[in-house]
């Protein structure tokens, strides 16, 4: 087990380094000079050169990469070119929007999808199953940003219950902040929930057909007990794996949904930083996002291994 863990950790590290190299290389080719952007149309070439020097942009490529990586390793994310504040502070402020949003979306989608999926599996072939899966089929096809628009139309404009956009921050109390996250979380979570419900249903049906469930039934276990005690726990492996995979989709999804609801999260920071050629922020963000995807998948693998009774026995 330790050997397995070590190997996985090594791969994780190697992937992270490769990702950082890719990001760094890609950004060097981007047209646009951060110094020129900061100084605007009236600036003279010598002024721009002076600023480039001050930002350390005139150092050789390899040196700049090493400086950056060394900083990352020690928790120093560098200084934002545009804001002149540590990138860590900048990201820290935004994470407080994006992370609760992603978590809320995952919780929502899981809370809806698993009961629906299990129920549909239990009622397989009946009208309830068909209706739920029909809705799920449509849900999968709705792009989250359009769902966001529809939710705004319905719950912010027609029925003025929730804010259409913006984020009041957490200083003003948890409730106003949560209120602002409800619609975005629904927009993000519902389509993912639809996918999850379909997978849950398929996985439960699959395990219902397996020998040990049949045996349990033959031993006189009620249908419901067989479902909840044996079929569902065993169906969790693919479901958990999918939730892990969805994390990556969710992160990407926040990029667009934050734009729909104008939330000051990581997604909008990415756009803003790309537009202003705040390269250091872009680099940090992409590596951070890629890193969290890698880390989440790593954890999911472990959880799946732990959940799977066959693998648990082997270990």
């Amino acid at each position: 087990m330790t050997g397995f863990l070590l190997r996985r950790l090594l791969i994780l590290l190697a992937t992270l380094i490769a990702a950082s190299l890719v990001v760094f290389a890609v950004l060097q080719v981007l047209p646009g000079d951060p110094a020129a952007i900061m100084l605007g149309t009236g600036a003279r070439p010598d002024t721009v050169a002076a600023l480039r020097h001050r930002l350390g942009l005139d150092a050789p490529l390899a040196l700049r990469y090493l400086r950056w990586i060394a900083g990352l390793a020690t928790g120093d994310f560098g200084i934002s070119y545009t804001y002149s504040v540590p990138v860590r502070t900048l990201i820290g402020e935004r994470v407080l929007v994006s992370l609760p949003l992603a978590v809320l979306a995952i919780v929502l989608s899981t809370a809806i999808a698993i009961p629906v999926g299990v129920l549909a599996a239990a009622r397989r072939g009946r009208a309830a199953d068909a209706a739920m899966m029909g809705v799920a089929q449509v849900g999968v096809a709705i792009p989250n940003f359009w769902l966001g628009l529809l939710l705004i139309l319905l719950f912010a404009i027609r029925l003025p219950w929730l804010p259409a956009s913006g984020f009041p921050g957490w200083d003003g109390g948890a409730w106003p902040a949560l209120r602002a996250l409800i619609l975005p979380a629904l927009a993000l979570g519902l389509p993912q929930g639809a996918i999850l419900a379909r997978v849950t249903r398929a996985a439960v049906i699959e395990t219902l057909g397996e020998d040990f469930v049949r045996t349990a039934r033959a031993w006189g276990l009620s249908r419901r007990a067989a479902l909840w005690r044996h079929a569902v726990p065993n169906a969790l492996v693919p479901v958990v794996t999918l939730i892990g995979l969805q994390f990556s989709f969710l992160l990407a999804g926040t990029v667009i949904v934050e734009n729909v609801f104008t939330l000051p999260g990581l997604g909008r920071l990415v756009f803003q930083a790309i537009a202003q050629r705040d390269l250091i922020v872009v680099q940090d963000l992409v590596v951070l996002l890629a890193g969290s995807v890698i880390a989440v998948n790593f954890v999911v693998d472990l959880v799946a291994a732990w959940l799977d009774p066959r693998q648990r026995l082997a270990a």
Partner: protein
Amino acid sequence: MKGSAWRSPSLLAGAAITAVMVAVALLSLVWTPYRPTAMDFVHRLAPPSAVHPLGTDSFGRDVLSMIMAGAQSSLTVALIAVAVGAGLGIPLGALAAARAGLLDDLVMRGCDLAFAFPALLTAVMITALAGPGAGNAMLAIGIFNIPVFARVTRGAARGVWAREYVLAARAAGRGDAAISVVHVLPNIAAVLMVQATIQFALAIVADAGLSYVGLGVQPPQPSWGRMLNEAQTFIWRAPLLAIFPGLAIMLAVLGLNLLGDGLQDLLDPRLRRAR
């Protein structure tokens, strides 16, 4: 086989919706009610009427015509993106399956690396790098399709490589490439078809998303995503503008998903049992 196809409602519905979408896209090349770029400053933000069945946008352009032209651009981008992904991913996956060992490891680790980048984020970066536009959107979405096809191909092909007649062909001295083309690929074509349908649907969503943030097909060429973005600005005055393009995206994706599900049921009897 043919008989069972007719019994699958999702296959039928999916095929029908997709056929309509393709037909509309093709039709828009030769005919739309109005020129989709023609502006009518007098009739701006007009509600649906007999003259403009879906109304007009803030420039007075006919929304129905724009949605028709949007179908064409959306399907084109998705098609080429999937073609890029399949065209590079399938050979890579087939190669990895044929030559287990270092090459296989390399290809698979490369896929892992690609999967670590959230797809849309990658696309945003690529389009920001190369400039917004249809071509770059295709490329960005296509690049993310490469590892998907590589993985699926490798997974399916490895099973085929273990079969006796393939081993026999190898023993007879046939090259890996020849075996891949003659024996392996035909055997996994069905799996790849299903995957391609699913990726096609995902590509339509991705294209709409990129267009929504202004990185997809560029004006004046209409696109569903950009129509939604513009609609949001006028959502207080003309909420309907935010409905129709979204419906179009949903229908296109729904059609392809149903088609994919139906195909999968048809080709994989074991899975059919589960559905």
